[in-house]
């Protein structure tokens, strides 16, 4: 059993900042307020920064270390079904799909929100509904993400939430 350094400081600060900002905007902040807009734009900036870091950052932060692969995802699902515990060092294949889903969804939420402030789309029904549907989808995804992280943590005996705080995955197989 060993301790592996996985998540750099940027990835960890990004992750928890997104949690706080998205959570605030989706659940607490008045959606007609200026603060709501500013937080929305802050999230877009965060996502863009993460994308850049995904191209030039540390090993497990790079997209190349967790490409969206259907075959790898299928393999991970059959591992789970068959009771095989293969621990991935960085993001798992299924985790990768969730991350790309969230990155794209957050950008689209920001875009639809911005469109609502333009003269062209001010007061139009569809931009607002699109914005709301995307937010609901993001919330659904977040619940699934949390459930999956808890599920995988228990199945593999690696504390994944803790790793996203400290940067280290403990208890990894040799």
């Amino acid at each position, binding site marked *: 059993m060993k301790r592996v350094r996985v998540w750099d400081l940027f990835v960890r600060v990004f992750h928890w900042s997104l949690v706080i900002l998205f959570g605030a905007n989706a659940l607490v902040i008045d959606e007609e307020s200026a603060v709501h807009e500013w937080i929305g734009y802050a999230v877009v900036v965060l996502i863009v920064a993460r994308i850049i870091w995904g191209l030039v950052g540390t090993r497990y932060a790079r997209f190349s270390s967790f490409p969206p692969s259907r075959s790898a995802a299928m393999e991970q699902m059959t591992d789970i079904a068959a009771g095989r515990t293969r621990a991935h060092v960085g993001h798992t294949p299924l985790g990768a799909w969730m991350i790309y889903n969230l990155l794209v969804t957050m950008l689209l939420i920001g875009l639809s929100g911005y469109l609502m402030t333009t003269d062209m789309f*001010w007061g139009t029904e569809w931009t607002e509904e699109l914005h*709301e549907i995307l937010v*609901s989808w993001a919330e659904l995804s977040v*619940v699934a993400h949390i*459930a*999956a992280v*808890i599920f995988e943590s*228990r199945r593999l005996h690696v504390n994944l939430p803790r790793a996203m705080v400290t940067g280290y995955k403990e208890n990894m197989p040799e």
Partner: protein
Amino acid sequence: MNMRLPARLLLVAMLALPATGAIASERHDATTAAQEQTIRDTLTAQGYDVRKIKREDGLFEVYAIKDGERLEIYLDSAMNIVRTKRDD
């Protein structure tokens, strides 16, 4: 059941997911077609480009554009403008 705890947690989470779909959408009190038409006619005559009408906190809330400004206009039940908010 025979399910191990992780699988059970996952099942519960999956069953709870549909509930989150309700969170993001607003619940609007309805405006009648007649009310909407009155508001639309009144404001259009005053030079507003009326985009959307809904109710909020007992008032009518209208999204409109006038003189190049994006506005939220609040009207009471007598159709008087009680407040105008500019979107900066």
